């Protein structure tokens, strides 16, 4: 039996029972569409989170441990010499830059208002490493760090609170912190809380005028040469600092090393499992859809027992009958799968276009369709047609012509 004929017969069968065929397909449509949509949702979240974090993915944060380790040596502070050691290329090839920072809360007085800001003393690389931009003025430069210049750069919330909406209005203004006066040379763009509440100034300036503390620092941002070098750089940091602090047992470490990269990996892993899990739940509806196809094909074979008898009497082989019913169920499931793909992709695209209009938080959840999920779910729907149609088709093919002809 040729394919064209089989297709025509199958189409005729499906058309003859339009409602029944449509309802059967609905099972597959819902299953395929929900698999595609849920995978797209998971993928969308993963993509948007990664996009935000990716520029920061090669950063490692080192902070001193809080409190004594019971029974251990008194904890050593992180000091400038530690920074210098990490910057030494002969000790680590995977560390590209080390940005020291010392920070604390302090009251910042403007012309009329007072703001409790997180004051950070650091180096000129801090802005770039944190992937931040200026909205007015400039960040302090290397010369200003070396000369202990009395300059500050304000976070957008600080500038807004002290000087109003226009960031340029803050430029050149004096602010007082700890009874010292500093000049505002720049305002940073908003990155959301808590980053907007920061006031940045050169590290020597903070030490001399605000927090004191000698050569102590309370945070290091270590930049790995690239995101893939993060684990190696992390090991180097631990090795170099452990050596300098004479720590043999990792439990006695007086510093903590965290990388966004490893947290990002954990996040991605959890999200992937979550996505797979929800897709698997959605796939349950595909199983239900498959049972629907099986059921309807069994009904179809029973209804057409006599027709099968006629076809066999006029020369149809088992194979011809098998093919006819297999093609019918493939068509049913395949068509359902195709419509399911269209619905799933359509809803995902609709969601991606509508979600951002509810605000930036929802934009994170903008679905993004993955090609493998489309191919896989369509392939599964075809497989359903083949498997769920196989048994009824085989039953039809094995019918004995004289009994089938006698069937009323």
């Amino acid at each position, binding site marked *: 039996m040729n394919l064209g004929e089989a297709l025509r017969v199958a189409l005729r069968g499906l058309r003859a029972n339009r409602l029944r065929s449509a309802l059967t397909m609905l099972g597959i449509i819902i299953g395929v569409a929900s698999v595609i949509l849920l995978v797209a949702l998971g993928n969308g979240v993963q993509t948007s989170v990664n996009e935000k974090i990716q520029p920061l993915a090669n950063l490692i944060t080192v902070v001193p441990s809080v409190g004594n380790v019971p029974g251990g040596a008194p904890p050593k502070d992180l000091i400038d010499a530690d920074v210098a050691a990490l910057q030494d290329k002969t000790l680590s090839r995977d560390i590209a830059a080390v940005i020291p920072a010392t920070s604390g809360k302090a009251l910042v007085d403007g012309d009329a208002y007072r703001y409790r800001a997180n004051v950070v003393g650091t180096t000129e690389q801090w802005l770039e490493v944190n992937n931040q931009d200026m909205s007015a003025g400039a960040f302090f430069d290397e010369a200003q760090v070396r000369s202990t210049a009395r300059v500050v750069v304000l976070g957008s919330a600080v500038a807004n609170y002290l000087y109003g909406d226009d960031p340029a209005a803050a430029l050149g203004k004096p602010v007082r912190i700890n009874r010292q006066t500093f000049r505002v040379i720049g305002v940073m763009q908003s990155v959301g809380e808590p980053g907007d509440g920061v006031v940045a100034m050169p590290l020597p300036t903070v030490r001399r005028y605000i927090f004191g503390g000698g050569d102590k620092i309370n945070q290091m941002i270590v930049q790995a040469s690239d995101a893939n070098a993060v684990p190696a750089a992390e090991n180097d940091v631990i090795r170099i600092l452990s050596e300098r602090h004479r720590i043999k047992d990792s439990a006695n470490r007086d510093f903590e090393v965290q990388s966004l990269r490893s947290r990002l990996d954990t996040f991605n892993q959890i999200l992937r499992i979550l996505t797979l899990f929800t897709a698997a739940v959605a796939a349950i509806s595909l199983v239900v859809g498959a049972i629907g196809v099986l059921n309807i094909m069994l009904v179809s074979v029973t209804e057409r027992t006599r027709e099968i008898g006629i076809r*066999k009497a006029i020369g149809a082989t088992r194979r011809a009958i098998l093919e006819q019913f297999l093609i019918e169920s493939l068509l049913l499931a395949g068509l359902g799968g195709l419509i399911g793909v269209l619905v799933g992709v359509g809803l995902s695209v609709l969601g991606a276009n509508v979600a951002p209009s509810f605000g930036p938080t929802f934009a994170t959840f903008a679905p993004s369709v993955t090609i493998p999920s489309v191919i896989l779910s369509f392939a599964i729907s075809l497989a359903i047609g083949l498997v769920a149609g196989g048994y009824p088709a085989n039953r039809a093919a094995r019918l004995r012509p004289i009994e089938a002809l006698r069937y009323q």
Partner: protein
Amino acid sequence: MIQIEDVTKVYRMGKVEVRALESVDLTIDDGEFVAIMGPSGSGKTTLMNIVGCLDVPTSGRYLLDGTDVSRLSDNRLAKIRSRKIGFVFQSFNLVARTSAIRNVELPLVYAGVRIRRHAARVALEQVGLGDRLKHMPNELSGGQQQRVAIARALINDPVLLLADEPTGNLDTAASAEILKILGALNDAGRTVVIITHEEEVARFAKRIVRMRDGRIVSDQAQRIRTEVSA
């Protein structure tokens, strides 16, 4: 052409054995017009099923056109039916929701013929339905449906036309028409075997085989063939 030797057919219905055919011998030559008669339960339908390769005998031999078909597999039997036998049934047995011409094309589909339209049209024209090609079975009268069935039975040019009570569901006029067509086919050299319990129908054949209780009880040639007046 048809050579049935010592054919027995036993059905098992639960625990009961039904001997539908009891060592039947029957030879039918090319160009014959045979009526097989008998009351219900006489085994005539079983005989037709075996002659039509829809079923195989329990024992004995059946040669069709020189081939022993009594031990063939399902698939081989399907191929024999496709090439050598045309069926006409009492209840027409057209495929529903399928136009007359597509019904006639079906045997060609299963025989693997690619170009079918023309042959099907010619066959329908020969049975006088050239103007009903696109009609669905439920839009045709009984007589017309049976003529479609005859066209379908003939499309593969079978060596044997097997008709099981072909007039059983038809009124007198339509019956006469169908018998006329069968007669004309036989006149043209086609071997026709007709199963019936109606004497008038049987009288129309050249030879009448009578069955009872699974055995052939009489087998006689008719000198005078009744002409059907229609």
